[in-house]
């Protein structure tokens, strides 16, 4: 027993890394497609998205970098898709320099899928959505947007004057925006810019999305009603995608189709397996610790 105890006590971390790597690869090759149930947070979010009516303008803020994309992109995908379903007008921007470029990639994929699902609808840049790019300055940008959006954002991401686009015709200031959807990968986003300034100072409803690791700090704002909705990590993003119904029946399940793809399922499975492995290692660590404690007492 002593040898086993010693082995686990001095377990090389590379063995743990190897277990994680093998589990990830095996799950990706052979996914389990575990059932994803729609939680309260995802249901609330769908209601928030459905409160947006035709021709109402919203901001979707991409305040994250490539590192946060695996968790936040599915959220952005679901939000944009639902907004296009609702025939809302979408202004995309970012307080992170990489955000608007990531927004471009995401919206391209959403439009491709959307136009396949709705062949009679065409999503047009400048009419249905626009990318006004990145702006440095954090909360002061919000203060300036409260007076004149077109003064602080004079051109779109590619340098074209934003006044030339139809979508901006009826938009002068922040109060013309129905709601803000802020997807945040850390500081400089939802918590320190959109919530205290757009929501608190100017009264614009804000719904958020964040990575799992930063989620605990956002629940207090949900509870107080300052956040209209919260997608707290990849799991709720997958739930949101499942909750968005498409206008046709899934040929495999014979049920109404949704946005939850096999790829998203695979990632959810990988997350499940990695959580399990971490838990198993924690249990092993604790059994070793408790056994050692008992053994040393006996001696």
């Amino acid at each position: 027993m002593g040898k086993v105890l010693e082995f686990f006590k001095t377990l090389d971390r590379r063995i743990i890394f190897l277990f994680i790597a093998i589990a990830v690869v095996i799950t990706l090759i052979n996914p389990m497609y575990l059932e994803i149930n729609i939680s309260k947070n995802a249901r609330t979010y769908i209601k928030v998205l459905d409160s947006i009516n035709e021709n109402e303008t919203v901001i979707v803020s991409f305040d994250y970098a490539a590192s946060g994309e695996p968790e936040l992109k599915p959220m952005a995908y679901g939000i944009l898709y639902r907004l296009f379903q609702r025939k809302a007008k979408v202004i995309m921007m970012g307080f992170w320099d990489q955000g608007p470029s990531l927004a471009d990639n995401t919206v391209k994929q959403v439009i491709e899928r959307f136009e396949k699902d709705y062949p009679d609808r065409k999503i047009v840049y400048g009419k249905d959505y626009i990318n006004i790019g990145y702006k440095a300055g954090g909360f002061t940008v919000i203060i300036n947007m409260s007076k004149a959006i077109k003064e602080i954002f004079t051109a779109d991401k590619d340098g074209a004057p934003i006044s030339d686009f139809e979508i901006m015709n009826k938009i002068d200031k922040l109060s013309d925006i129905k709601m803000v959807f802020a997807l945040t990968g850390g500081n400089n986003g939802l918590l320190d810019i959109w919530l205290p300034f757009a929501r608190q100072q100017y009264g614009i409803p804000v719904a958020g999305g964040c990575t799992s690791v930063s989620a605990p700090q956002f629940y207090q704002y949900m509870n107080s009603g300052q956040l209209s909705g919260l997608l707290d990590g990849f799991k709720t993003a997958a739930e949101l995608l499942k909750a968005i119904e498409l206008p046709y029946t899934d040929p495999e399940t014979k049920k109404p189709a949704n946005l939850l793809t096999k790829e998203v399922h695979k990632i959810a499975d990988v997350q499940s397996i990695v959580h399990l492995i971490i838990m198993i290692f924690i249990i092993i660590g604790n059994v070793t610790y408790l056994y050692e404690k008992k053994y040393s007492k006996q001696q």
Partner: protein
Amino acid sequence: MFLRKTLPLLICFFCGVFAIVGFFSAEGTAINTYYEKLAKWNSIIAAFAMLLGVGNLIRVNFIKITRNHHDKIYCAILIASLLITATFGILGGVYPTKIDPANPQLMDFFKNKCAYIFEYMMKPMQSTMFSLLAFFVASAAFRAFRAKSFEATILLVTAFIVMLGRVPIGTSIWPGFAGISEWILSTVNMAGSRAITLGAAVGATAACLKIILGLETRYLGGE
């Protein structure tokens, strides 16, 4: 002395007081209008701060290269990457409207190169760095997460429930995990998190007041 200390302190005092009063003043009032102007200045300063950051990064790394520091190869890679990306980014960004609108091919060249760097270098590298967290968290949890006391045991049990409730496999084992996990996060965690936030906010307010009133001067450099 006046330029190095008194003047910055005076600017800080007036801007700080002005920002606080402006924040709480009604829209349309003179002070609120100037407060919004001050916000515009802040945006400009933030843009210049970025330039300052880039300049400082180049300076620090250049010094390391000239002094034959053991990390000089990484410093050189950093400077080269910065300059190459910035060149493609700036030229691809300003070219269409500022230089020669009649030459779309050149614009596309710079834009495509910048997009290429972002898509095939920046994104995979950042994603890889973030993904490594899973490995390090697993290793750290194995070594540090021990039920050494009653409180640590409660923390451990709570962590297990939340970990299971946050992934589909948890609800496959027992559907109740999701509900309990949600309750822990939105009730127990929320209370603690709110207490920490309020405490930190009071602390930050005190620290800001010290800076505005000139009691804290370390941001000016020196002692």
